[in-house]
């Protein structure tokens, strides 16, 4: 029912789901979609609908756990699977997310270089801004800033609009699956789907739901938040693919990353399309450079049982704030070191993420079906079939991505 009351509840609960899903379109995500559009045109658009569904299925479960238990995912894993599993999971993910943060700062540096700003200026400033935001801000304030960052993603919609693509054909390609048995196509398919679900997302979403203190009564609104977020994310991905497909693919230009895409757009689609594309990349990178360290600080502290939360400070949650600070500082510093092995760092983090994902998702499915923890909110039988199938497919594709990254 779309009553005024329901809308108000939704607005008060909105945040964690939308933010988490949008950060899925981080520097790496934008690069993947840009390359997919530039090299395969509209041929991969159809994957976005199953991707959205898979994302909703997984994220809905963690949001539900957060709302029902009031505990974060790391809390539940430590309490149900013991200290050893938790410790190794946390340490591996800390490593992986550290690497991801480096990738985000690299994306931010690349985007700012399009505007002629040296990375030695943009990276320290960017790092300081996101550090200050979380250290000084309260959860409510920080969430508002993050939601504004989510809105900036729509620069990609404008970017796609400026390139005047053939909308009729695009709509058809979006709903009609196509398939090629070419190795390059399969690798791209794995790349697009395999980046969809990363372990940090489950931890961040559940922690944010818990810190926001969303009650079971408002669970429907919280689920709506997750669904809207997932759809929004893939709509953005859709526009990225379209913008690159209509221009770069048509002219047979090959690219390797998002910065290439932004630069290549200028002669083909005009200055505005290019600038909007770069703004989108800068925003996404910096946004993720804040969320990833935040997610990491959340799960490490929760696993160990230390106080955590954006609204806390160095005095009330010292470990949380120092972890956040440390990850940002190290991530930004690595970018500033000349000739740092960025590719190797990102590769390692992708591998670790891929290996940890099955554990996280399976732990999650065991937890959500535990009546002692979830009460009447366990998965239904049908949903379990869907959830397990999704998890198996995502795990296989993520591991496939790990393997292809070595080819």
């Amino acid at each position: 029912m779309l009553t005024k009351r329901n809308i108000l509840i939704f607005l008060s609960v909105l945040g964690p789901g939308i933010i988490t899903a949008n950060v899925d379109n981080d520097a790496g995500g934008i690069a993947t979609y840009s390359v997919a559009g530039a090299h395969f045109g509209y041929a991969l658009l159809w994957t976005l609908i199953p991707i959205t569904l898979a994302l909703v299925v997984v994220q809905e479960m963690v949001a539900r756990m957060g709302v029902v238990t009031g505990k974060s995912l790391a809390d539940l894993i430590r309490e149900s699977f013991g200290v050893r599993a938790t410790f190794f999971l946390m340490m591996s993910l800390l490593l992986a997310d550290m690497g991801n943060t480096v990738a985000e700062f690299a994306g931010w540096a690349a985007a700012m270089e399009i505007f002629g700003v040296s990375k030695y200026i943009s990276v320290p400033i960017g790092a300081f801004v996101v550090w200050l935001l979380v250290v000084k801000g309260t959860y409510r304030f920080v969430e508002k800033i993050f939601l504004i960052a989510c809105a900036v993603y729509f620069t990609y919609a404008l970017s796609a609009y400026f390139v005047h693509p053939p909308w009729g054909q695009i709509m058809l390609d979006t709903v009609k699956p196509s398939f090629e048995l070419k190795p390059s196509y399969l690798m791209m398919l794995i790349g697009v789907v395999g980046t969809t679900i990363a372990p940090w997302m489950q931890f961040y979403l559940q922690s944010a739901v818990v810190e926001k203190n969303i009650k079971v009564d408002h669970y429907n609104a919280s689920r709506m938040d997750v669904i809207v977020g997932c759809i929004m994310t893939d709509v953005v991905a859709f526009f990225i693919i379209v913008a690159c497909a209509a221009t770069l693919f048509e002219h047979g230009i090959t690219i390797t990353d998002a910065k290439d895409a932004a630069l290549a757009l200028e002669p083909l689609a005009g200055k505005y399309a290019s600038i909007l594309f770069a703004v989108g990349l800068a925003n996404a990178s910096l946004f993720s450079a804040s969320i990833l360290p935040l997610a990491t600080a959340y799960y490490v502290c929760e696993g160990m049982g230390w106080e955590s939360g954006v609204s806390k400070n160095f005095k009330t949650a010292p470990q949380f704030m120092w972890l956040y600070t440390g990850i940002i500082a190290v991530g930004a510093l690595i970018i500033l070191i000349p000739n740092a092995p960025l590719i190797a760092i990102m590769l390692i983090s992708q591998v670790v993420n891929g290996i940890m994902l099955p554990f996280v998702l399976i732990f999650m499915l065991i937890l959500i079906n535990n009546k002692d923890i979830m009460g009447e909110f366990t998965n239904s039988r049908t949903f379990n079939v869907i959830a397990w199938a999704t998890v198996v497919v995502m795990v296989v594709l993520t591991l496939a991505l790990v393997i292809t990254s070595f080819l």
Partner: protein
Amino acid sequence: MPFFSGDIFVSDVYKKTVLDQTGEEIGKLKDIIVGIGEPFPPVITLVVTAGGETYLLPWHLVNLFNKRVISVNMKIDEISPAQHSPSDILICRDILDKQIVDINGAKLVRVNDLELGDVKGKLCLVAADIGLRGLLRRLHVEKRGERFFSWFNYKLQNKLISWHYVQTIEPKVARLTLKITNQKVSSMHPADLADIISEVSQKERTAIFGSIDVETAAEALHELEPSVQVDIIDDMSKERASDILERMPPDEAADVLGDLPEAKAQELINLMEREEAEDVQELLEHEEDTAGGLMTTEYLAFPPDMTVEEAIKELRLEAPDVETIYYLYIVDSDERIIGVLSLKHLILASAQTLLSDIMITPAKTLSLDAKKKDVAEFISKYNMLAAPVVDENMVMRGIVTVDDVLAFLLPTASRRRKR
């Protein structure tokens, strides 16, 4: 009787083989059931698993229990599988890895390990290990961790919280709460309590103040910054606030009320008992930084024609209610001050002496509007513990005690807490 020695960490015996009296393996130790016991829950049953079956071995049949050997005085064929009841407390399942929160609900750390120890001949759960060493022990790298830290000249210590401080446990608790509440917080010195209270957030403060008794609250409240005092009073129910104010010495209560909005202050005064309310009301009329504002209206006053014996008897009755008993003021029927007598003089004088014969006269007095600085200098100059305050007709109105101006006499840094 089971034989055990020293303290045993649960992680050291967890999954250890349990043997029967002939040395045959029964299974692995999976959990330990503890009973209800204050303050330390005693071990009552060992939960052992073997090949999917669970066996419950009562503690009184245990023979050896240490990190090398666990054995029972039973034969393996005498034991049959059993289930523990839902109300049992299993320490690995219910306590290990659980979150510990303090009384304010702030997360501290998780239970990394548990320590069992000897309490009056019984093996009891004595402490929760919350330190890094406990964590390493659970990860089976305690020795390596110790060596690693010894390179940095750092000795890895156990960090234990005595079970004393943990709230009674129930099966399947979500989190363990430290009961540094009534029992423990109140046994702290009010000044230390005040230090803790000024560290925590306002919400947590209200929770602490809600949990301690009125006397302690009254003493702790006085130690806090005026702005913090106002916040706390604002958050409390009016009835509780007025109860706490009543228990405070009138001058301190007046200080707190003076910082509140006038309407709120008046409302609280009206809820106080009449006698206390009048005292506070009077004090509120004086400027805060003058002798009138600093003074307390509780002091010992005696007529000049009383004997020492009567005075001592009277003193015994009144002493509990006054802030300082070291000076006795001698006043006439109109309450005008005519002399002063120290407790020492009183005790040393013979029983039948009249107070007027041993009092020191004239008494050194302060006027109601004397500035704080002058009050401090006055007290310091005459080496007094308290100075009487009089109005223009020499009628005694109260005393200023040395602790009211002590902060003023000290260097700036050390008086931050006391305004």
